[in-house]
């Protein structure tokens, strides 16, 4: 009997507080209602400003590629598809199947998705939408450096695969995930807003005795995270997922500490056009860092050029930039490497028994760039890693947990790996009736992803450092590494598998 009374009292106290808050929300309500003037038929426009704060199982903050990948993955797994998920993002694209015009030139923001990511996309039913848009598989890759001392060519056939990866525009990846999610009967609510504050409703004891309401201990329905939005709305969730990128608001509000450094370099990205077709990924290490040329469709490629801020800049006119680009990809800074410059074929001949297809391939010069096909965008480069990925009812995924050098295009693949692992661990938790916000469950995600991500970051950072120094002995070492990677088949297979997200480095697995 007493229990019932206690609950009723608690509920009353709750309503009391809810109504207080409503007063201050009125102004904001009017404001944001105007934003909602064009409600979408595809998804439910949430009922805000009711007496009770909306309660969800999971709140995903950030509906970018990684956030949507998590939503999609949850929507397709049998044990998680019943979950009630909120997605907080002000991007209007989330609420509809906005279409991408095929005749537009490729967007410079692209990702190289690995075979592991492709199979994840297939699992969540999003790859078929990617295939309807522009995407470019590449089965060959050539890596070399400006000293002309060596090169490595990788071929998908080295690991018996069709492709080493696929280059897809970020907007295509995102819209494919959105389409896939809208195709399920997943219970989602999209909040077109931004997160402003976040609090873990303290466990009952400290929610405490509300002095004003005659010493009633109020137990809000569950230990929940409460989120306040920029439009004045608020919601509760058992688990908050920070998928809001490198400048994560969730990470900041929840007080996660980060480790990292700036490279004091910028990445310049753009789309370029060739006169011939390109089906190979090219990467050359220049004194300032790598320049990568990735195929995006028949005659278009994407450029990611790491440079020192003072070196070249975007104010340079287009013709000069194209000239500089061709220079950097060809004879600039140093000669072409020659096959067998160190007599490498002999040195590595004892591996001959097990030759990879690509070991006999010769150095090629990447196709000439004829013109620029997009704006040039500049991003400062940095490395950031959150010391923890999980806290009470909070978890970080994707760039919110780790920001890496764009070298080798691993950043977003690590994020998709996070989304896949987190949804699987949530499903495991649901299978045994665990509260999905419980830290012991979330720790499993952290344990699994942290070691994988740290490993990848260390490799990428090591590459960046190793290639940014022009120093005699180091150059010899680099040359040896190129030759080793090119001629030693088992090593080559390990490198290719690792880069395609299908292998952890042997000493870590």
């Amino acid at each position, binding site marked *: 009997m*007493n229990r019932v009374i206690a609950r009723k009292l608690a509920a009353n106290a709750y309503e009391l507080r809810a109504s207080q808050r409503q007063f201050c929300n009125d102004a904001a309500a009017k404001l944001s209602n105007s934003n909602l003037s064009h409600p979408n038929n595809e998804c439910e426009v949430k009922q805000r400003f009711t007496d009770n704060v909306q309660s969800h199982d999971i709140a995903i903050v950030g509906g970018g590629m990684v956030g949507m990948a998590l939503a999609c993955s949850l929507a397709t797994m049998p044990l998680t598809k019943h979950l009630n998920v909120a997605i907080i993002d002000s991007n209007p694209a989330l609420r509809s199947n906005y279409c991408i015009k095929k005749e537009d030139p490729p967007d410079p923001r692209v990702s190289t998705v690995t075979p592991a990511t492709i199979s994840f996309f297939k699992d969540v039913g999003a790859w078929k939408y990617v295939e309807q848009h522009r995407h470019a598989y590449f089965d060959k890759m050539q890596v070399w450096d400006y000293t002309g001392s060596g090169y490595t060519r990788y071929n998908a056939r080295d690991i018996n695969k069709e492709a080493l990866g696929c280059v897809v525009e970020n907007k295509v990846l995102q819209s494919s995930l959105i389409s896939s999610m809208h195709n399920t009967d997943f219970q989602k609510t999209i909040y077109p807003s931004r997160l402003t504050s976040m609090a873990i409703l303290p466990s*009952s004891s400290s929610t405490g005795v509300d002095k004003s309401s005659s*010493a009633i*201990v109020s137990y809000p*329905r569950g230990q929940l995270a409460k989120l306040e939005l920029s439009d004045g709305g608020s919601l509760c969730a058992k688990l908050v997922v920070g998928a809001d990128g490198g400048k994560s608001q969730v990470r900041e509000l929840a007080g996660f500490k980060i480790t990292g450094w700036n490279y004091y370099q910028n990445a310049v990205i753009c789309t370029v056009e060739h006169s011939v077709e390109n089906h190979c990924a090219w990467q050359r290490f220049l004194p300032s860092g790598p320049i990568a040329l990735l195929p995006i469709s028949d005659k278009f490629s994407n450029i990611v050029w790491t440079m020192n801020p003072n070196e070249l800049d975007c104010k340079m006119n287009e013709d000069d930039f194209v000239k500089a680009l061709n220079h950097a990809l060809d004879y600039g800074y140093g000669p072409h490497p020659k096959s067998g410059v160190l007599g490498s074929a002999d040195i590595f001949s004892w591996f001959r028994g097990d030759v990879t297809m690509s070991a006999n391939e010769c150095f090629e010069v990447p196709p000439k760039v004829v013109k620029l096909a997009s704006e040039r965008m500049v991003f400062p480069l940095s490395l950031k890693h959150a010391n923890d990925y999980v806290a009470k009812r909070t978890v970080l995924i994707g760039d919110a947990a780790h920001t890496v050098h764009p070298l080798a295009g691993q950043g977003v693949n690590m994020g998709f790996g996070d989304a896949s692992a987190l949804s*699987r661990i949530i*499903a495991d938790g649901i299978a045994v009736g665990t509260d999905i916000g419980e830290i012991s469950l979330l720790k499993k995600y952290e344990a699994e992803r942290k070691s994988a991500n740290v490993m990848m970051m260390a490799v990428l950072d090591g590459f960046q450092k190793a290639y940014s120094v022009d120093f005699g002995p180091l150059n010899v070492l680099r040359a040896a590494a190129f030759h080793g990677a090119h001629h030693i088949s088992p090593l080559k297979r390990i490198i290719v598998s690792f880069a395609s997200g299908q292998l952890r480095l042997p000493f870590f697995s």
Partner: protein
Amino acid sequence: MGFSYRKAKFVAYEINGPRVQSHRLLRNGKAENKIGGFAESEKAKTMASRLSVMKHVPPNRPWSMIHLLNPRPFSTEHHQPPPVTNTTPSSLKQQELAKFSAIADTWWDSEGPFKPLHALNPTRLAFIRSTLCRHFRKDPYSPKPFQGLKLIDVGCGGGILSEPLARMGATVTGVDAVEKNINIARVHADLDPVTSTIEYCCTTAEKLVEEQRKFDAVIALEVIEHVAEPAEFCKSLAALTVPDGATVISTINRSMRSYASAIIAAEYILHWLPKGTHQWSSFLTPEELVLILQRASIDVKEMAGFVYNPLTGRWSLSDDISVNFIAFGTKNSQ
């Protein structure tokens, strides 16, 4: 979904005499139970006498794994009426609730004194999920496979097991002889609308038998080693189970390894448990458990061991029943 509950399928045991052998069968619980023919044998008699020796209960065990603050949870000699039944006593104040909620935080603190139990919980739930889904023909891919099942968690403590069972869709009754535990469990369950439906009672299994309560499945985990008369206790569990219902019991084996790990390591070296938590001599071997359950008309169909991996800090199901083990049985239909 790659969780270990699928593993439990492969950890099955056939009961053949009092010896419990590991092998990969019994998927549909089809294995026959041959223990009956053995009951009158010499060995069974010595076992029975051994069981009666176990009547002696250590004078005071202030702590136990499940029964915090509970010296003798299900003693049959315990005849005075339990202090409370079904409802919170009317004298209970809101301030009291606040106080209990403070203690509830330690029961439910996964890094606190009950850490080993929290770590073990998903593993034993995986076993329960897998065995009950097969027995009651429930969809293992459903998020709430136990919908429509009435389960009782005997010795529920703070509700660490009851709450996940409720989230899996079961109608759960949690009983514990310690009133404090029940209050803690209630406060915590009220935090979530799904778990607030759990019926917690401060009572004993025997008392519920008198009330003629019946359940589809009776679950008593880490309890039987604290009970004065395991045989009587098993009879009570059987009496609470509907015909063709299920009974799940987990406990610690009485082996050299269990002495080393459950008592010396857990209590004296790792300090996971307070010293004196467990009395090695009152542990049951799998053979003994099978036998006393058999006498209570429950056929043990599956058994699995729990093994701890000190590197990952996680438990998993295995064939190794030499320390912690869990048994699933069904009640004869007659």
